[in-house]
């Protein structure tokens, strides 16, 4: 059988299936588009010590809207566009659906001895067709019915093909083309309730089987596979140690003070920095044949930046992550961030302005008694504020309101961590105290709200005995800082819980357990 005929038959079959099963449309009703990870032996690292309750959300890059979550159904023509119900930009995202995280040990029992306890993965429950999900990741980018193919990024399709028919024009014997590489990657974000840590992965739909034009033979609807992440940590299972798909948690960015100058008017000029996050991804580069689409009169809805891989999308203006520094006046050391009056300091800072893991720096002058925080905005930068169907279906209006913590507005309840520039109104305290046991030592970490009169800092054990004394970092600048130190088993002297005392003001934290 000639290859062209085979492909024709397959294609006809698929179109028949699509037509025949399209009676009921909601969000991915004609296809499922699962989000796998466990079965391909990938997982997220265990949550860090001190982390709270873990939850996850996802969205499709360029199509996410976390401001409207409704799990609503839509029309057949609008499925996958980001509009549901018709006329509402609710986005293609996890909406009000439940995103399940499974204990990796429990489903990969054959490898459990190598999997760190507490590792989590996305298993068979998660898909774009699940209940409560907003939208569908199968994007019909135009109104052409052939774009609504119920498959993620196939390498075949008749409308934009070089061959209108198999064998015509003469010598044209392949439906292979890249004009249907139109479905954008997705982001999977794991957060925890103390708002100090998160884990993030972005992946394109799974690479199609075969090489070159043979990819056209893979006509499956396809899926996303978080185990394709290639810049995470090394997989701890020896059989899979060549894969770097063990996705680590990261700290939610929080400004640190590298230096401070107290001005004559008592304002502080602070040199701030925070660690640039790492976007863990699959290194995907999936070119789209925009020229072919343009030739068929669809130039205005071309795929941006030439492709649907994470790298392609990341090269768009604005990248895939931005920071917004904010400040607010405070009257105490532990203010409720949702009640403060926040003001943006400068404009967004692109994550791509520095290497992952390096420092982002910023200089700023503030009055005493000021809180600073960094909002970490994830996903694409919208190309337009217009949310009409024509723009949304082209991925131009997202992503909205996806951050490293569940903060969608200035008065959000889940604020990223604050850094306080102290003054007369701010008390000096040790907060966010954590003691995490690791083999024969305990790592103690904490943060000070403000240091105006601190001489040094004691770690207290049983009976408030001083186990260790560390020098203060800011001491008199009014700024808070971060501390991390190690106590050996011998230094603990039998203590089961610890306290932190700031000598000078004499403020002692509450007792916190050694975990």
């Amino acid at each position, binding site marked *: 059988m000639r290859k062209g005929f085979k492909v024709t038959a397959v294609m006809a079959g*698929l179109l028949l299936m699509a037509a025949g099963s399209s009676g009921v449309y909601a969000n991915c009703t004609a296809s*499922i588009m699962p989000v796998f990870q466990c079965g*391909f032996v990938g997982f997220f690292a265990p949550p860090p010590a001190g982390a709270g309750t873990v939850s996850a959300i996802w969205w499709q890059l360029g199509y996410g809207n976390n401001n409207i979550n409704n799990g609503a159904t839509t029309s057949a023509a609008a499925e996958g566009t980001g509009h549901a119900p018709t006329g509402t930009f609710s986005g293609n995202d996890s909406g009000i659906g439940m995103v399940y995280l499974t204990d990796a040990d429990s489903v990969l029992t054959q490898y459990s001895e190598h999997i760190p306890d507490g590792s989590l993965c996305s298993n*068979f429950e998660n898909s774009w067709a*699940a209940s409560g999900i907003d939208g569908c990741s199968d994007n019909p980018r135009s109104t052409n019915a052939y774009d609504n193919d119920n498959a993620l990024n196939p390498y075949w399709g008749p409308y934009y093909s070089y061959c209108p028919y198999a064998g015509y024009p003469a010598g044209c014997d392949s439906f292979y083309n890249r004009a249907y590489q139109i479905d954008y990657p997705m982001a999977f974000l794991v957060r925890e309730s103390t708002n100090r840590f998160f884990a993030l992965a972005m992946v394109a739909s799974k690479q199609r089987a075969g090489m070159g034009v043979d990819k056209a033979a893979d006509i*499956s*609807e396809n899926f996303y596979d978080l185990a394709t992440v290639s810049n995470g940590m090394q997989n701890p299972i020896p059989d899979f140690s060549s894969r770097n798909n063990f996705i680590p948690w990261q700290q939610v960015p929080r400004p640190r003070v590298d230096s401070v100058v107290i001005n004559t008017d008592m304002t502080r000029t602070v040199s701030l920095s925070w660690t640039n996050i790492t976007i863990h991804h699959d290194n995907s580069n999936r070119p789209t044949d925009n020229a072919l689409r343009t030739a068929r009169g669809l130039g205005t809805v071309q795929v941006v930046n030439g492709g649907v891989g994470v790298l392609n999308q990341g090269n768009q203006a604005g990248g895939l992550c931005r920071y917004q520094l904010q400040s607010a006046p405070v009257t105490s050391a532990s203010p409720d961030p949702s009640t403060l009056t926040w003001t943006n300091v400068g404009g967004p800072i692109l994550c791509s302005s520095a290497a992952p893991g390096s420092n982002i720096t910023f200089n700023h002058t503030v009055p005493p008694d000021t809180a600073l925080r960094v909002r970490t905005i994830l996903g694409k930068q919208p190309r337009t504020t217009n949310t009409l169907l024509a723009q949304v279906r082209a991925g131009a209006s997202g992503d909205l309101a996806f951050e490293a913590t569940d903060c969608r507005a200035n008065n959000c309840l889940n604020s990223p961590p604050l850094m306080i520039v102290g003054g007369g109104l701010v008390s000096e305290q040790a907060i966010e105290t954590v003691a995490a046991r690791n083999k024969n030592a305990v790592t103690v970490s904490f943060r000070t709200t403000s240091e105006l009169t601190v001489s040094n800092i004691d770690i207290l054990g049983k009976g408030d005995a001083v186990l260790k004394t560390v020098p203060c970092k800011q001491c008199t600048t009014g700024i808070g800082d971060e501390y991390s130190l190690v106590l050996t088993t011998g230094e603990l002297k039998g203590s089961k819980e610890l306290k932190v005392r700031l000598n000078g003001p004499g403020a002692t934290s509450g007792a916190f357990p050694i975990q």
Partner: protein
Amino acid sequence: MNLSFLKKHRFHVVVGAAAVAMVLVAVVGDLAVASNMGFKLNKQLVRGTNLIAMPFRTPTQTAQQLCAVFGKTTAATSLAQFTGTAIQSYTCDQLTAGFNMINKGVGVRIIESTTAATGIIVGSHIPGQSVTIPDAGAFPVGTIVYAYPYHTTNVNSRDVCQNGALTTTAPAPLLTRFGPGGGVDATYTCDQTASPGFPLRLGEGIQISGENNGPKVFVPSHF
């Protein structure tokens, strides 16, 4: 022990003991097909969409095991189980067991995108086992692949509607059958009471959705 009873009624005792043994064999082990409800089916998996009617009792307990039945080991074969409220998915190239099969009247959708295959499905029925057709909702809520018994007395889609006492006034539930071509080859709504609808085929499931007066719980009739 008084043996006179056994001597007097030995024929009945032997028959009774044999019957009890058959039931025990059928109940105790999934691998057992000793009862007269057991069977073995050479099932075809066509390219396209297949709705597989799993036996109510079968040794195939996970998605991974169902892949093995058809000798499938690549992502070209994808499985989906509709629970009535959610969808569970799997592709045959995964190293986990995947979802646990519900069986007991719930079938599995298999989309085979490359090569057709055959597999041996074995199992037996559970007489008296009820099946639930869920209440309608936004997809996938309310959608199920109904796996009727292999020796059902239902002949066509209308019989299924009547057996389950499904709603027979519009809007009535939609029954969808997939055919050997891998696509939808017949549909029926339960309000078409004058028409018998499409015939049922051994080993196939039918997709049911849109039962607005659900859940409907019934015992599938069988020989």
